[in-house]
């Protein structure tokens, strides 16, 4: 399993580089430049969301809620379902750790310097300059409605078929992702707080004594 998807989603909230100089429609380019400018000074972020996954693997959609806290290069995400902790993710110090509270297990993945895995949210993968080359972009702006950016990967082998992002005042309020497998994900952003106070303790993965820590790829490990 690749964690890149998860991690890169979280990196979505980092500052955006400049736009590509060619290809994008003038309106889309102006919008993205403005957004990049608005996000340029982000030092920390707190995002609360509700996610609805409709997967062909599952008999019914899976709804969960979560909170992502990001500060510098460290990130913590906790997801709950029906008020109960479901899974936690912590990224930092060259590692990504997944904690399954119900199993009492932590999986550790080493983040190597390899190429970033494909992200369902290409805008967030850190290279906006490439966005126009890799995606077909359509921007829709209408009074009283969120701005809507539709991104379709040009690579036919991409697992993502389409991503729709909706913004209000350059803050993401909703993301819809459709995959070529037929899965779809809807993320409603409930809170999008830029440069909010984030305590270092919020970024720590706190696990109870006796939690089993295993290597994420091989499954080898022991209780700690």
């Amino acid at each position, binding site marked *: *399993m*690749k964690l*890149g*998807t*998860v991690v890169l*989603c*979280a990196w979505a909230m980092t500052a955006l580089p400049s736009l590509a100089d060619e290809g994008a429609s003038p309106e889309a380019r102006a919008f993205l430049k403005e957004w990049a400018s608005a996000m340029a000074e982000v030092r920390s972020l707190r995002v609360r*969301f509700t*996610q609805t*996954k409709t*997967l*062909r*693997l*599952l*008999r*019914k959609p*899976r709804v*969960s809620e*979560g909170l*992502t806290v990001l500060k510098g290069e460290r990130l913590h*995400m906790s*997801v709950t*379902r029906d008020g109960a902790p*479901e*899974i936690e*993710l912590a990224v930092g110090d060259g590692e990504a750790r*997944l904690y*399954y509270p*119900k*199993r009492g*297990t932590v999986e550790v993945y*080493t983040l*190597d*310097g*390899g*190429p970033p*895995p*494909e*992200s*369902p*949210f290409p805008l967030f993968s850190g290279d906006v300059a490439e966005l126009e080359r890799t995606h077909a972009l359509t921007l829709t702006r209408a009074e009283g409605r969120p701005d809507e950016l539709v991104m379709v990967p040009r690579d036919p082998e991409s*697992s*993502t078929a389409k991503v729709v992002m909706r913004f209000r005042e350059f803050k993401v309020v909703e993301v819809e*992702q459709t*995959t070529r*497998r037929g*899965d*779809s*994900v809807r*993320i409603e952003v409930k809170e999008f707080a830029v440069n909010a106070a984030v305590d270092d303790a919020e970024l720590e993965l706190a696990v109870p004594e006796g939690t089993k820590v295993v290597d994420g*790829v*091989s*499954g*080898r490990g022991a209780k700690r």
Partner: protein
Amino acid sequence: MKPAARWLLALAAVGISGVALARLEIEADVTQLLQTPAARALQTAERVFGLGERVVILVEAPAAGREADLLRCGRALVERLEAEEAIASATDGLGTSPDAFVDALLLPYGPLAADPDELEALLSPAGLRGQLEQQLERLSLLGAGQTEAWVERDPLDLHRFLVRRWRSLAAAYTIQPGRRELLDREGKALLVLASGTRGSQEPGAARAVVAAVDAARAAVLAEPWAQGLEVRATGGYHLAEESARVIQRDLIFSLSTSIALAALLLAWGLRLAPWMIGGLMLPTLWGTTVGAGVFALTRSSASAVAFGCTSVLIGLGIDFTIHLATAALAARAQGLDPQAAARDARRRNVGALVLATLTSASAFAAFAAADQGFLREMGWLTLCGLGTCLVGALWLAPPLLARMLRRPPSVAPRGGWLDALAQGAARRRGWVLSLTALLSLAVAALLWIRPPQLEDDLRKIHARNSEPLAVQARVSEVFGGTQDAVFVVLEGASEAEVVAACQRLEGPLASWMRRGLLRARVSIAALIPPLEAQREALAVLARHPRLEAELTEALDDVGFARDAFGDYPARLGAAAEAAPLTPAGLRAAGLSVLVDDLVRVKDGRAYAVVQVFPLTELWAGGARADTAAALRRVLTEAGVEGKLTGLPLVSAEAAEAVAADFLKICALTAGLVLVLLVVRFRHPLHVLCVLAPAALSTLWTAGLFSLTDERLNLMNLGVLPMVLALGIDDGIHLTHRSLAGDGVGTPRFRATLLGVLLTSLTTMLTFGSLALSENRGIASVGRLTLCGIALALLASVTVLPALLALRRGARLNIAPTSRDSAGAGEDVGSDA
């Protein structure tokens, strides 16, 4: 014999020699020269698996962010290389990707790779449910993509058992995990591997492979997208090609410069016109060529290293002519006509020349006792050359000298200062001998404390600034630790037998890795669990006869859509019926590329190779010896009969074998020379006189080596007996002259001293040019002989006259030292 007939016969001999030399095959691969157990095992590994015969191509980008170009470059190189006739195969990766590996084996073999207890826990109803619930929790992470694909592909995470094995196999290279391509972690370098259609030791093979790689590199780098990429190559072919090229160039340079310099030196020393010196060189060149031709007639191939001694032959061969020339000049200065002077010189020197040839020949004959083939070749080649050079000197030099000396010399030959030095040493013999004894004792003490060391690093006989070695070091730096693996080669009647042996080694090797003593091991046992463990896993599966139904129920219970998983439950249910995994099973699953590198049947025998990658480089003696000893212990404890090999081990064994040969040759040489000298001179003091220059130069040279940390290696050890022989020649000529009644201070002793000086200087020049060689082995030969001959000369003109003056009745003829009064002293015609 009529002059015309003499020269026609000489020309015919040269022609025959040329034909014989043209058909001789030259071997340049040093690993082929050294027939040690490790070298033989390496040859087996090369023959069966192509190990050591690979081309390793390193593609580097100047900065990160060009991974796509690197990968494209790798693919383009592979495509071009595979189209080359000299290349058998090429790849830019491990043969298969981890995903393809998992896909090929997941079911039914995934469960067979698991620990039985772990499998039992997973397959219980609670275990199945727990695993599926964990997958659901994982699906709660933000977004959709590969996580969903993996859960669908393998909801029970059986691939983890296979990934563990894959990881342990891929650990030999520090590459980006999950990739098939050998791309480094920073995304700035890529490796491409290729193998040749013929072994690197086969004539022309290394050159053809290197040319093919160069052509592919040039074509790929000409592409616009490849701009800025750097492509370099290393491996057995490149080392062999470089060695052959550099040695050939070094020898051509050495031969041409040594001939020119020796000619100039002789012109200066003998006060002859340079064209005359050209004539004097003829007997030596003829002797060297015909000697090499005689050598070539007796064999079909020879090592390039053996031909390093052709410079030695010229150095030795010219000595005969020089001694004849100095004697003839002295006789001419005494008033003899040219023909008579030439005849007189031959008559007076033939005894010393034959004896000197015999002592040198005894040294080279002793090479026949060496175990190493290239040493035997070197001995035989020099023996042939010495014989023909002597024939050339006695047969061709006198008529040449007679023509050259037609005009009476206006001044006597040089050497007055040498004569004065020798006379001074003879007069102050007490001082000279005491000082010599003190110096020698000091050197002996130094050698006791710091004996000369043997060089056991084969890389140090390759070219200085060797490109393949530099690329090898860069590959190690980029892709982690040493890439010089120790190979454990196992042989058996069947694949099952050798695979079982590899599996018995797994425990101890895994323990080494846990303790941080090993970086990685690559073995078929990484892919195939022991039969017993597989049977236990199959027994676990058999204890769950309703596995398919239980998994389907669990999928339904936790909320998965069972249809999305296709036939996964059915294949898991049928896994209990699977046959244990074997090399044949892996090949049938499409993994031949992986398997055939590790286990293979060849000529009716099964072979396996386990590549062990230590944490540290093995070129240093201590680390290598420790690793080899520990691995031998592992083999013994595991009850496995395997042969250890790899270039570092071959290097160490080669150094030991050559050192043993060297000791044997030296002992034999000393014995043979002593017998010859005792037979000829009988008196102990006379024998001591003859031996003194050689013995002292050897001792002092060893002292200098110790002081300067110069190491003996398999090349310069081979020429050490030659240096001894040359020192003994000096002793023979001077002692012979003195015993003939021409003592220190006489014109003939002075002429002989000049001969010794000129022969030493010409030899030093020929070896001096070798010291400039780019090949470090050949250069060390030059340095050793330069040092040895210079010190033998010093001992000959100082210590030896002092020793000769000790003889009862020795007569010092204290002559005027003016260079123009060569006629002073005794009569020309007075024989002993």
